[in-house]
């Protein structure tokens, strides 16, 4: 830990004591600066896989909680996809009742230690926060996500994680397909009602994108594992290495295996490519492949892991979302000397979490905005040697209100690279719909559901990325929860 980090932490204690020596008026609250997140030093962390953000100290959390105005209308709650009682839990943090705060969060959010780390708070709960609005900067809003993370970590490190109550057995059986956030949430909520629940997961570990996509340095895998363990202690059964649609047809689960309902949470599928010449050259990877090798299959543990990772020196990452940030930062940690992110628009339009972009910049990732490749060039062995890149400028706003990037004619340039990681999104996973023709999907292959997450097939529900396209952990959880309610009703 650096001096800066120590200063931030010690300072919080002094500040907190000073603040509380006199009555705290709203005006005083507004003057407290948002608490910085202690983090590993960028020059160190770019060489390790350990978590970057270190989390608030109790004093920092209490000081940050003092910034909340406890608004009556609580606009932050409306910004939260699962409607956490935000002023409620922050009030508890302020009083030092961290476990009490945890109970309030857990009423609506099953996975706070994860959401506190990966939710895009600046576009959700923190966007409408009164403090941020008054100070004319979302960045100055109450740091709700950091507080959520603090509370969840406190609960876990103090051995206070409670296993939710499970009602007496109903004799009904529910199958959950996919152990990502959608499936895990649905499983917990259905299990609480006393139904038997089995989760079928294709991979050898549960967690979905949280284990294969999002890197260790952003979301430690022990957290995901301990959430799955809570489900196990609730009596949820996990069938790993089980590909529904292939190991067993979806409808056989209902018709022959005695399941009364099925929830499909199979997540996003086949990665999109740019559709430019040279994309099948050696050294071009989808972000999914690159990250799965590095995370799930631990390719970063060279010598120990059986799965190889491509030795890269100059890496181009294409895209501007979280997936692009994760790929770029992973490539750096795996030893690349130079990593550049090529994005067709500008920083303002980047969909990645603000914190990840900041962290990436601190670590030395170079951003080339308003650039997009037109060709991948190879050497005589079919390996990536360079990208031909076209520059853009911003034109008129498009349907999404973002200014459309327009190519600048004749601006092509050649940039040398040995690795290209494509992180421009996913199509939907084709497997379940291919093997279950009765299931209606839209033209992108996303499963069509009604407002209660029910599909075109009776007793079959779906949610998360397989319905929404590439979305977020919290939206996937929200859909899992919604589906669970509907399932619980039909099983009453």
């Amino acid at each position, binding site marked *: 830990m650096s001096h800066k980090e120590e200063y931030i932490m010690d300072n919080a204690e002094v500040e907190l004591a000073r603040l509380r020596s006199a009555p705290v008026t709203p005006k005083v609250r507004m003057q407290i600066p948002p608490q910085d997140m202690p983090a590993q030093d960028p020059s160190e962390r770019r060489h390790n896989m350990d978590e970057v953000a270190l989390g608030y100290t109790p004093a920092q959390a209490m000081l940050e909680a003092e910034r909340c105005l406890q608004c009556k209308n609580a606009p932050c709650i409306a910004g939260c996809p699962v409607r956490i009682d935000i002023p409620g839990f922050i009030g508890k943090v302020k009083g030092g009742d961290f476990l009490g705060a945890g109970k309030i969060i857990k009423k609506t959010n099953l996975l706070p230690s994860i959401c506190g780390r990966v939710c895009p708070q600046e576009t959700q709960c923190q966007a409408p926060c009164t403090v941020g609005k008054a100070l004319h900067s979302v960045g100055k809003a109450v740091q709700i996500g950091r507080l959520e993370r603090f509370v969840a970590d406190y609960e876990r490190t103090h051995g206070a994680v409670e296993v939710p109550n499970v009602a007496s057995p109903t004799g009904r059986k529910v199958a959950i397909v996919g152990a990502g956030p959608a499936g895990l949430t649905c499983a917990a909520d259905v299990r609480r009602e006393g139904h038997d629940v089995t989760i079928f997961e294709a*991979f050898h570990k549960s967690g979905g994108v949280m284990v294969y996509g999002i890197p260790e340095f952003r979301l430690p895998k022990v957290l995901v594992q301990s959430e799955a363990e809570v489900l196990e202690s609730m009596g949820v059964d996990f069938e790993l290495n089980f590909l529904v649609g292939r190991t067993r047809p979806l409808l056989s689960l209902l018709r022959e295996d005695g399941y009364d309902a099925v929830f499909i949470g199979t997540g996003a599928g086949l990665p999109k490519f740019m559709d430019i010449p040279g994309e099948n050259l050696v050294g071009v990877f989808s972000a999914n492949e690159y990250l799965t090798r590095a995370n799930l299959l631990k390719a970063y543990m060279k010598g120990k892991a059986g799965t*190889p990772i491509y030795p890269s020196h100059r890496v181009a990452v294409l895209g501007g979302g979280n997936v692009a940030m994760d790929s770029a930062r992973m490539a750096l940690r795996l030893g690349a000397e130079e990593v550049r992110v090529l994005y067709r628009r500008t920083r303002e339009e980047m969909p990645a979490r603000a914190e990840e972009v900041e962290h990436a910049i601190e670590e030395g990732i170079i951003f080339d905005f308003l650039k997009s490749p037109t060709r991948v060039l190879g050497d005589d062995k079919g390996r990536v040697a360079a990208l031909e890149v076209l520059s853009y400028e911003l034109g008129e706003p498009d349907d999404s209100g973002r200014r459309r990037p327009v190519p600048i004619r004749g601006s092509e340039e050649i940039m040398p690279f040995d690795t290209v990681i494509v992180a421009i999104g996913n199509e939907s996973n084709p497997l379940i719909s291919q093997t279950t023709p009765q299931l209606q999907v839209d033209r992108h292959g996303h499963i069509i559901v009604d407002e209660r997450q029910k599909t075109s097939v009776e007793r079959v529900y779906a949610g998360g990325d397989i319905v929404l396209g590439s979305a977020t952990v919290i939206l996937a959880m929200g859909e899992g929860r919604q589906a669970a309610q509907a399932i619980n009703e039909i099983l009453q």
Partner: protein
Amino acid sequence: MHGTHKIVSKSQLSEEVFRIEVQAPLVAQERKAGQFVIVMYDEDFSERIPLTIADADPVRGTVTLIFQTVGASTHKLALKNPGDSIVLLGPLGNPTHIERFGWAVCVGGGIGLAPLHPIAKALKEAGNRVTVISGARTKDLLIMQDELAAIADEHIVVTDDGSFGRKALVTEPLGELCRRAPSPDIVVTIGPPIMMKFCAETTRPYGIKTLASLNTIMLDGTGMCGGCRVSIGGTTKFVCVDGPEFDAHLVDWDGMLMRLGTYKEIEKEAHDRCHLEMRIEELEAQGDGARAPEKEPAK
């Protein structure tokens, strides 16, 4: 959490080729000719290894896998014994399209003879006349010969070195069959990519429909990672969900061969290290004071 599968029997077919039978009742029941599985020798550090299913016994609830120890991962798999558990996911990929074509020629090379067997058998059962061409580098690597001979109406065996059967590459007899009148109605080929490529080139001038079962790099096998992509007739396809069988005349063989070589250097290093470690283990097991060579520091 469940999901691992027990090895119930194991045998060694040649110096480099192993056969394991794994308890996996649902896979045994669902699998059809042409499908494959992904296995891992452990849940923590193993690579995900795609292997085509050689046989299955739905009654015993087992699947049979035959593999050659070509790299560090398959070496480690070969160290597993009956009673040990491994990860196994499947059956993956689309089954071979089987119908009554008339005269079917099945060409298998080396380890590819194992997955060729269920396909040849299914073609035979569908009422085809089946010619099998078995090829291998040398006699030792010719596997599944009794089984293949039992179903084939005609069985041609070749080895590169002439140690058994005809001294030839599989493309030689394949070319001869193509020139017969009438010529084969369909050719199915499984084996090393380079062999499949040349089979495709052999049948192309005669316009004989030729299917090849591709063995690309794979991770998930479920249509998520895109690592298995190949160019088929100019469009990108994913072998695990769109294949594994494709029209051999449309496959971009050179592109696929290049992609297969992505990790060649790293794998060679791992393989060498693995050999060294196994040698050390052997020496240590001998316990006769034989001094193990210094371990190469992990890079």
